């Protein structure tokens, strides 16, 4: 059974700050996004990409996913960012302003060319497109299916609200439709959905509320701006013990149903059928990824034989 790759927390690390870069091994987030875009002043674009390259070349014993946010491909830095950092083997590229599928296709082609040049397997470098404008939201259903390299869609609320010429609020009503569309696009393509940053690092309650909301909507993770935000996000994404217990009961119940030759059974007065089982399996896989349980799920028992 396919395992879930946890991407609850993707922490931004400024690309031009050695003190932050060299802490990457000790941050306990699921992944980092080393930033060459907004965190780097225009005068330092050249120096930041060299610093990131030299850091990654030395940081070979990696314990988390390493992505690099390059500058947009239509800027004068985007291509040079790729040329400099790809030889240092990041896991993937976060592509800003992924407004159209064509932009992602262009990155896909460039990555293939670099892979050939570097003699690494085609498809090695993954892509995380940032959906961060009205146009990006409209096109994200196609963007999600552009390339096998795309493992998730990332929603960027700061740029999105700027493109709508509105304020971003802490309650996020203005983001609801866009977030939902990004989740649909991702789920329909069978990939993950990563929510935007929460920029007020002193408001842990606000972060908690927002994370609970986006988890409910279907996001599987969040971009973060400060390591202090990691624990809050992990706690919200961890399955609750009672959810896990119930999921285990569901799986047991459906096994009994299979033995009796039926696909539906009652558990504590509630009907258990295929969608319920599917959700339970998802909970158990997530719990497994969190190290809460260690069980083998037998698909044939759960979903039945043909």
């Amino acid at each position, binding site marked *: 059974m396919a395992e879930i790759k946890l991407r609850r927390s993707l922490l931004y690390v400024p690309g*031009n*700050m*050695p*003190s932050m870069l*060299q802490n990457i091994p000790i941050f306990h987030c699921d992944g980092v996004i080393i930033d060459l875009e907004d965190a780097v002043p225009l005068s330092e674009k*050249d*120096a930041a990409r*060299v*610093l990131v*390259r*030299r*850091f990654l*070349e*030395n940081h070979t014993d990696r314990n988390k996913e390493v992505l690099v946010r390059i500058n947009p491909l239509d800027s004068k830095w985007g291509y040079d960012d790729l040329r400099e950092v790809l030889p240092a083997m990041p896991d993937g590229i976060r592509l800003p302003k992924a407004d159209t599928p064509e932009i992602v296709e262009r990155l896909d082609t460039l990555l293939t060319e670099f892979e050939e040049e570097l003699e690494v397997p085609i498809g090695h470098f993954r892509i995380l497109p940032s959906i961060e404008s009205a146009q990006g939201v409209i096109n994200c259903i196609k963007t999600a299916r552009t390339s096998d390299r795309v493992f998730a869609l990332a929603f960027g609320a700061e740029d999105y609200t700027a493109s709508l010429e509105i304020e971003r609020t802490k309650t996020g009503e203005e983001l609801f439709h866009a977030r939902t569309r990004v989740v649909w696009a991702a789920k329909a393509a069978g990939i993950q959905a990563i929510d935007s940053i929460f920029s007020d690092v002193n408001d842990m309650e606000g972060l908690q509320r927002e994370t609970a909301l986006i988890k409910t909507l279907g996001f599987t993770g969040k971009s973060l701006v400060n390591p202090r935000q990691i624990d809050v996000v992990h706690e919200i994404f961890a399955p609750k013990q009672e959810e896990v217990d119930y999921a285990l009961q569901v799986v047991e119940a459906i096994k009994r149903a299979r033995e009796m030759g039926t696909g539906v059974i009652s558990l504590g007065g509630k009907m258990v059928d295929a969608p319920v089982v599917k959700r339970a399996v998802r909970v158990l896989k997530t719990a497994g990824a969190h190290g809460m349980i260690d069980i083998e799920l037998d698909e044939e028992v759960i979903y039945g034989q043909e």
Partner: protein
Amino acid sequence: MEIRRKVQAGTMQSSDLMVFVEPAEKLIIEIESTVIKQFEHLIRAKVSEVLDRLEVTRAAVRITDRGALDYAIEARLESALRRAATEG
């Protein structure tokens, strides 16, 4: 690589360094560091290695180090040299 103009690279943040490079008739290397006593020989070795690799034989290189690790010394010096080799 030919050093054509006076440039700098890096920052004064901790774990970073500033590198100042300008044209000179010969190779001059000056190092200031918060950890000069323990690490001057290592910083100097790293600087020489990068200068050799980029074939820089004539330049004045001044470094103010704030406890940077090897990768950062290499990166900042490399950035300074690349900047110095282009027309401003």
